[in-house]
């Protein structure tokens, strides 16, 4: 804040950053960077969507409830995903089926 009470662009960004940090701390997340990204399973690349059994992402996800299997298909519970990207690292599909997506649209794809 400036002494005049006027919000600069810089302050706005810092403020948002701080809020993100607080939010991350509140939800017990290690880094702010990861707090901004979430895993998304792309069905067209995912082996489970081809009726092949594959549950690697679910098995290796360290966050309880962040990856769930619905009728054999993996799905990310966005509110629980910490963005650690382990699921992306272990995905064995020929084209990686896990996309890390920014929480805000401007965050884009990591």
């Amino acid at each position, binding site marked *: 804040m400036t002494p005049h009470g006027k919000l600069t662009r810089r302050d706005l960004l810092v403020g948002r950053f701080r809020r993100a940090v607080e939010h991350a701390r509140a939800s017990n997340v290690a880094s702010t960077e990861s707090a901004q990204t979430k895993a998304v399973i792309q069905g067209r690349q995912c082996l489970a*969507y*081809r*009726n*092949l059994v*594959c549950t690697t992402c679910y098995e290796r996800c360290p966050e309880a409830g962040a990856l769930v299997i619905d009728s*054999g298909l993996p799905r990310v519970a966005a509110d629980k995903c910490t963005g650690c990207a382990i699921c992306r690292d272990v995905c*064995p*599909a*020929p*084209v990686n089926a896990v996309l890390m997506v920014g929480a805000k649209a401007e965050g884009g794809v990591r």
Partner: protein
Amino acid sequence: MELERREFVKLAAMSAAVGAASSMNAGKACAAPVDPPPAPDRPDIPGVQWDKAPCRFCGVGCHVQVGVKDGKVAAIAGDRQADVNKGLLCVKGYHVGMILYGEDRLTTPMVKRNGKLEPATWDEAIDVVARRIMKSGKKFGMYISGQSTVPEGYAAQKLVKGALANNHIEANARLCMASAVTGFLSTYGVDEPASCYDDLDACDTLIMWGNNPAEMHPVLFSRVVDRIARGEKIEIIDIGTRRTRTTDQADHYLEMRPHGDLAIANCLMQQLIENDTYDKAFVEKHCNFRADQDPRETAEALMDHDAYVAHVAKKGHSGLFGKPITFAQFKKLVSYYTPEKTEQLAGVPAEQLRMLAKVFADPKRRIVSMWCMGMNQHTAGTAVNNLVHGVHLLSGHWGRPGDGPQSLTGQPSACGTVREVGTLAHALPGGRLVAKQPHRAFCEKAWKLPAGHMNPKPGYHTVKMFEQLCTPTDAGGDIDTVWVQVTNPGQSLPNTKKLYKAKADLPDKFLIVSEVYPTASTELADVVLPAAMWVEKNGVYGNSERRTQQWFKMVDPPGDARDDCWQTLAVARRLFELGHPGLRGTDGKWLFTIEDENGDEIEYWKWENYYKINVDKHLFDEYRQFTFMKHKNVAPYDVLVKVRGLRWPVVETADGEFRETRWRFVEGDDVYVEKGRGFQFYHSTSKDDRAQVWFRPHHQPAELPDERHDFMLTTGRVLEHWHTGTMTMRIPQLRRAMPGAYVEMNPDDARERGISNGEVVAITTPRGEMRLPVWTNGRATPQRGHLFIPFFDESAQINDLTLDAIDPFSKQPDYKKSAAKVTRISEFAPPRQGGNP
């Protein structure tokens, strides 16, 4: 290199997109009565040449399209023209191209000098091998594989059983399929399934007997999951000792104790007879009854169960084909296995057993039973194979589309190379036996050997061969040299410390290993021969449903690596030059002579000439003449070139076409069945065209948990890795997805012992100790008191700990039942590095 790698990733990505598109189309193709419009078979990538090949991995036998760019495999796509997989592949299949490009490929022949492996030329290495074989004589053994190609198996067979008149040739399929073979032989009189994969598209009920196809035969299982996803009603029943990814898809899970399958199958037959729901017409026309001994030879006309078991224990069994018994005797024997009694023996609730018996009692229902290692790696493997065939025969659920027993193989050519070419110590090509004089005579004539040249005594089966190798010569170890090709016994044999690693202390014993990567087997080798693999060589494979599949060499092997088949033939040539009499045919020529159209010998044993002709075609078409006797007619090589495999018997039609057979012994499909017979088991052991329904009693496993070792340890494969992981652990995606071995434990067992998920524990069996992390919420959950450890990890070779007890008929070891102890060790020793999770 980096660029190549990036290119590879990019191309692989494109091929994956094709795979996805085609799998969706496959579903539509089945649902719609008309074929979908033709789609491109493979992605159109500039500079990439495509050709077909069967996948290198499991027994399903999917076809892949292999894309080659600048002399390297650059892309893989599921083959849409293949009936087996209709364009789909599993996670291993999509990455199969990368097996060729691990960083540590073996590229130079190595010969041990002064205790150290040193590089050698091929001429030197072949000479060392040939001289050693000369010196060894009858102490030489050859150990090949269900992953060897048909021509490789045939060449090795002709060299060892023909030229050397030495029957010590075995294949690793002994560890995997031998009980299925003895099961088929003693039931139908001839090996290999009568059914085919089409049954999975037509069945109403699918029963898994100790089988986890969701992980081990994924593309096959996806055919069923695909039908369920389209809304079809298929009942899946899983009988097993642990809940797996297959169980997740099942409607019923019958959790049994080890060897419970013996009691369950007997119980089903007891129920069918007691409720009078067996198929009387089918049994009357097509079945006989068999057992190990015939009680009619004694004073007692009808023996009850316990008296019979005591009788056989006293008298011993009467060979693989047993003795005929009456239906009345059969009924009396199986009457012991009431649902209540079976519940005590197998641990499966009586009401579940009654439910399963009702499934078989319904004549309209189409039922497929599927099994693989759970029933084959079993000290009563032959027996339980007989029993499951028996349930289908007795209930008449046999030989209609979607209705019959389906034995799966684990390896891509366990059927083609081992069971059909007969690369087992007692067998000859085409279902012949070394013990039968007319069969040897046929081979001697075909191979231009003097009459009486071949040895009538079967050689050593796998476990015995390696036991003799690892026994000091002066203590009776009469195998002193083994040549291993296309398999990794150092990690895959049971009780490897006893059966393989003990060789390290025996300097007069000699191991020759043809391999593609350094393995537990090459570690003890005296000669290492670098081999070409998969599409670096021509090949022919035969899958689980009698389908023979051919492919061409597409890329050059790295460095000095050469075909296994060439290695065998080069040694055969060197033996001929060294004057070994067995290599000279009755016409005075080398046994493997190939002549050109002018009658001049082609010097194809010289590597530079090897691919000037198609040696595979010569060997395969020579082998083909052996396949007619047991009606296992394979198609000529040139016909196989044009198709995605054909299922034998392949018969030539009046117009010169070659037609495959989907259901054997079934009128209308199998041309060898006489008109009006319906079904005809034309190789019946009782010579009356009938199949044998066996009585086989329940008995306990060879090793049971006791106070000291209070767990039952099972081993097996995982989805991502192929056997000992020598290929798949070098594929980064697969290695990352499944980086190391672990021990699966029931969460309640872990909790009781205060063991947490991921904690490293010591697993001890009477054979040794190993440290592994516990996985309690993993891919499968064993029942209480059970453990599961996969065998792919070379840094945790669980077969150091497994039992080497074998089935009495098939000589196949039981890897699934070792007594084990779990100890917490975190407080006194540093844990093993790495591993999962």
